[in-house]
């Protein structure tokens, strides 16, 4: 990715009168961290980056920002929000359009063809984080890590995030402007994580998930980071009636995680953010990918690909398969 092009485009878009701010990525405060950037003017675009460390899916901010009542005598701010998207992020935007969570003319989408990002946990494990912010680049088929002035070439296979290994849409599926040439797609590997769990018998599968959900602290970072968890009134926050108790134990944690998984069936675009942010290290991606795979295999539906699609959970065809329904 040409940084100059990225910043030039960012500056142009951020300076537009009809754009409130541009969402992009910037260097974080230490180590491998990359922080979301809210760029409000052309000058702010100078800090934008796009690198294998840019894991965050910024589409979540489209629906996360609170809509406060407009004070009497003032006009609502109807300017657009611009955002930079990788392939997976763009699927979130598309799915939001399908669900009418956002309208197309509310956003300016800048597409960043993405050769795949790193798994930040794996990176930190293999190459310990330093206090000084480090940089990373794509270097042909490999990653190039630059820390404390030293360059280390790392093979793609070593650090590529699981979601990227399985990715079929590295190029944004929706955009107003595309930065650079599309990248070549690759054959998604086997989803070993899901297959391993599928191969277990029912009892050991239950035991596996019991151990996982037992760790959940119910911080709801998975829900909040998810671009498609944007209900104004989440079922988990309801007290009257209380669908999920506040008590943190295996039973309630399971209710929470299953509720979230099912609400995302046919909607999850596999950006992997839930798994990345989970402070309890629960492999949430396995649940969502399993559901996504079932929806794809059984109904031939993929969310976040076609902005004209009918929402999966709101559509019915007489020949929908039902042989697996009890």
């Amino acid at each position, binding site marked *: 990715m040409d940084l100059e092009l990225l910043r030039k485009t960012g500056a142009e878009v951020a300076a537009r009168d009809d754009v409130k701010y541009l969402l992009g990525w910037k260097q*974080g*405060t*230490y*180590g491998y*961290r*990359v*922080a*979301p950037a*809210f760029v409000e003017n052309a000058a702010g675009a100078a800090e934008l980056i796009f690198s294998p460390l840019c894991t*965050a899916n910024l589409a*979540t*901010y489209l629906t*996360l920002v*609170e809509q*406060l009542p407009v004070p009497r005598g003032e006009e609502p701010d109807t300017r657009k929000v611009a955002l930079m998207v990788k392939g997976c992020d763009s699927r979130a935007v598309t799915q939001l359009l399908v669900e009418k969570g956002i309208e197309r003319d509310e956003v300016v989408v800048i597409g960043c063809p993405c050769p795949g990002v790193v798994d930040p946990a794996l990176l930190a494990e293999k190459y310990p*984080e*330093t*206090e000084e912010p480090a940089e990373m680049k794509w270097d042909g088929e490999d990653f190039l890590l630059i820390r404390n002035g030293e360059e280390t070439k790392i093979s793609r296979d070593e650090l590529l995030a699981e979601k990227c290994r399985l990715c079929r849409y590295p190029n944004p599926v929706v955009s107003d402007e595309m930065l650079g040439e599309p990248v070549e797609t690759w054959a998604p590997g086997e989803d070993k994580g899901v297959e391993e769990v599928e191969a277990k018998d029912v009892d050991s599968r239950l035991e596996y998930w019991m*151990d996982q959900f037992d*760790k959940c*602290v*119910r*911080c*709801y*970072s998975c*829900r*909040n*980071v998810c671009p498609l968890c944007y209900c104004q009134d989440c079922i988990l*926050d309801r*007290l009257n009636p*209380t669908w999920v*108790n*506040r*008590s*943190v*134990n295996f039973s309630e944690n399971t209710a929470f995680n299953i509720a979230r998984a099912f609400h995302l069936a046919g909607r999850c675009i596999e950006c992997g*953010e839930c798994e*990345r*942010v989970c*402070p*309890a*290290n629960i492999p949430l991606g396995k649940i969502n990918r399993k559901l996504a795979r079932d929806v794809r295999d059984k109904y031939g539906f993929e969310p976040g690909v076609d902005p004209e699609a009918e929402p999966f959970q709101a559509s019915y065809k007489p020949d929908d398969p039902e042989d697996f329904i009890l």
Partner: protein
Amino acid sequence: MSAMLLNKEKWPEFVGKLTGKNVWAPQSDGTEMRFAPVGENEKVVLDYNNTRVPPKGALFPQTETMFKFEIGSDKVEEPPLDQEVVVLGLRPCDARAMTIVDKLFKWDIDDPYFVKRQEKTTLVGLACNEPGLNCFCTSVGGGPAATEGLDVIMADLGENYFVEALTDKGKALLDETRDLLEDADDDAQKQKEKLSGEAEDKIKRSVETEGVPEGLPGLWDDPLWPRVSASCLGCGTCTYLCPTCHCFDIQDETEGIDARRCRMWDSCMFSEYTLHTSGHNPRPTRKERTRNRINHKYSYYVDKFDVIACVGCGRCTNLCPVNIDIIEILRQVKEAL
């Protein structure tokens, strides 16, 4: 009290001697370290940096059943809090955090749950030889071998653990395990001090707190707040993983006619935290919530209890999904003052 040594080979036996009690210790679940009750087959791991979830749950569990009752009956049952607990291998910052929340839980009235648990709990700390990247305990009154809040301090000297009782409770615990311990000589003492000095030097990040508690309220409308909170997801990671965060909610939960009144951790970063029944929310956006989190730790708590409610463990910064960095926020606060 006199310093002693515990040969590392005798560690399993040391843990075994405490089995009459409920022993909490850091264990690995394969991917992560966490504090959990030690069962028969679980292995206590002391070679760790710090757990993601702090051990504050030993005194302030995430979910506390206050009492059980039956709908339509006068029967009320309070779970006894008489189990003796030993927390092994907690870090000095986490022990110090317990002394900070202690002030709140014993403020106007004693909180019976916290106080009863505390009476029955012995805290055996482990000094840090290798502080983490975002550790800044030395900036907020702690240190890698600080003993505040601990009953016993241990330090990893290589072949042996240095072990020293700091309170009567700690002494009683070491008396029970006396046959496994040997007296420490001056060399061991010196080695321990050398290691803690070296650990202090390894701490790279720091915050400047001078003038912050008094100055923060004056920054109420400062543009720093929208800036540092814009990317906040509004999740509870920073607060739930904070060893000094102590907010809770109380709910009645029912299963048929069986009911229980529970209290559970709450987070000021959640929108419903300050939501009024009327629908009004005095902290309507993440800006107000972020501002409150910093003010509470670095100003209100200091005002009320004369101590900063942050021990510099770095968890909020390590685990924030969007790189909201408390050290950076405090730098910006200092700059704005």
